[in-house]
């Protein structure tokens, strides 16, 4: 039997990221690498700095110090190998990168959707930003993606405001993934939803991650969500990473005092 190929290229190289609003508010000196095909969870309580870190990583907020390096690999979609320094490439290129190669799923679907236009237009908009103009194809993609996220394609002309919270979140995911992003950021994607709706969304996200081979940075305070979705975890407290490891190791064999407290505080029904 041959040795398995375990090497994965680094997609995102995060070096010394600091973004502080005050002492221990924000994130400080964060280093990590995300490998292609990995789902990395960032866990911690509210105020730990995980959402600030995600905003910096996703290109929404410049850090006080440090670099976010995106190592783009040439693939079927074209392009060439390149290393892009997210906050050195300039506003226009950064926005293009976010639109064309990355995706962001907000906790509140209202932040990621345009509530006034139809579901189909929400999905088609990102494709149009990539240069697709054919109405029939855009509509077909919209319907296919609605099916993929278990929404009734018959509602393609309805505005998202007529959808339930869970449906809006699934629509936001369809809108984000329709362009086949190489890297997806998710901020508490199941956060505001009822438990029964959450379960359905989690199962769907697991399937999509597998089918599309997504690389994901996922922020969540919910350790059960982290267990189901993430391969690897960073535990944050007061703006700093206190422990990293395989998800099972963090949850079953936590080393740091704070991680032990966090894991042992979870109620198991």
């Amino acid at each position: 039997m041959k040795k398995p190929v375990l090497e994965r290229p680094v997609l995102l190289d995060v070096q010394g990221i600091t973004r502080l609003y005050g002492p221990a508010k924000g994130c400080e000196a964060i280093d990590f690498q995300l490998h292609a095909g990995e789902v990395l969870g960032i866990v911690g309580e509210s105020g730990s700095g995980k959402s600030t870190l995600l905003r910096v990583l996703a290109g929404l907020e410049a850090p006080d110090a440090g670099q976010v390096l995106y190592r783009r690999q040439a693939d079927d979609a074209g392009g060439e190998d390149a290393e892009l320094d997210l906050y050195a490439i300039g506003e226009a290129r950064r926005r293009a990168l976010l639109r064309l190669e990355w995706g962001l799923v907000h906790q509140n679907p209202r932040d990621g959707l345009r509530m006034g236009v139809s579901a189909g237009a929400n999905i088609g908009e990102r494709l149009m930003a990539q240069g697709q103009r054919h109405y029939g194809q855009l509509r077909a993609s919209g319907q296919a993606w609605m099916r993929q996220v278990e929404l009734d394609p018959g509602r393609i002309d309805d505005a998202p405001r007529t959808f339930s919270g869970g449906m809006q979140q699934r629509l936001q995911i369809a809108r984000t993934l329709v362009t086949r992003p190489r890297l997806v950021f998710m901020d508490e994607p199941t956060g505001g939803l009822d438990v029964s709706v959450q379960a359905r969304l989690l199962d769907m996200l697991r399937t999509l991650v597998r089918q599309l081979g997504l690389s994901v940075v996922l922020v969540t305070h919910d350790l059960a969500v982290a267990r189901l979705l993430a391969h690897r975890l960073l535990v944050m407290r007061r703006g700093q990473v206190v422990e990293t490891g395989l998800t099972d190791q963090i949850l079953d064999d936590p080393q740091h005092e704070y991680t032990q407290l966090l894991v042992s505080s979870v109620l198991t029904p």
Partner: protein
Amino acid sequence: MLSETGASPKRARPRLTVAGLHKRFLLHGQGGVEIDVMRDLSLTLQAGECLVLAGRSGIGKSTLLKMLYGDYRIDQGRIRLHFDDGDLDLETLPTYAWHGLRRDVIGYVSQFLRVVPRVAAVDVVMEPLLARGADEADSRQRAETLLARLNLPERLWQLPPGTFSGGEQQRVNIARGFIGEHPLLLLDEPTASLDAANRDVVIALIGEAKARGTAMLGIFHDEDVRERVADRLLPLDGSLGGLSNASQPCRESLS
């Protein structure tokens, strides 16, 4: 060095070597108490053999399996996998590499099924194949064949196992563990909540895995099952257990 007194007569090539493994838990919340659960454990495992861990409950048998699967960190000692083209040391394996290792090399039948809400039993079973990019229809077929062999009623296949009985959940778990045909398989009491007929099925599955060359490390409390599947026994009593003061390294011995 490792004792070879129990070397399997079948094949001389080890698939797994464990040397000088220790495990200590430090519990910050309990005033920093330290619990030693394993001291200086060594073993070798050949392709096509089933080594059964023996010893009283709480002695660290599951701990060893969890360290081999990456659930527990490896603090001290060496776990080495052997391949035709070289070795792989798990204690220095980067975290990102474990995911692929679990997908392709190390399988694990845990004591209890981790239930994912809303996912049907047959989907739970076929997931390890889909993770490798296998064809969905083929994977479903294989999953159904295994569930049928394990006598899980067909009406349950499309239901999430959350409401199943302990024995039914365990059979889903066994099917999920065996479907991937991993070259190294860890078995944590797979027969604990099964009736005699289903125990026989699991014993047959273990026999077939041996014939494929699967190396297996298992925990079986049922003595009858143990005798039927074990090629060797590894008694853990000397060097494991929080209260043990033994400093002797554990030696493998023939059952």
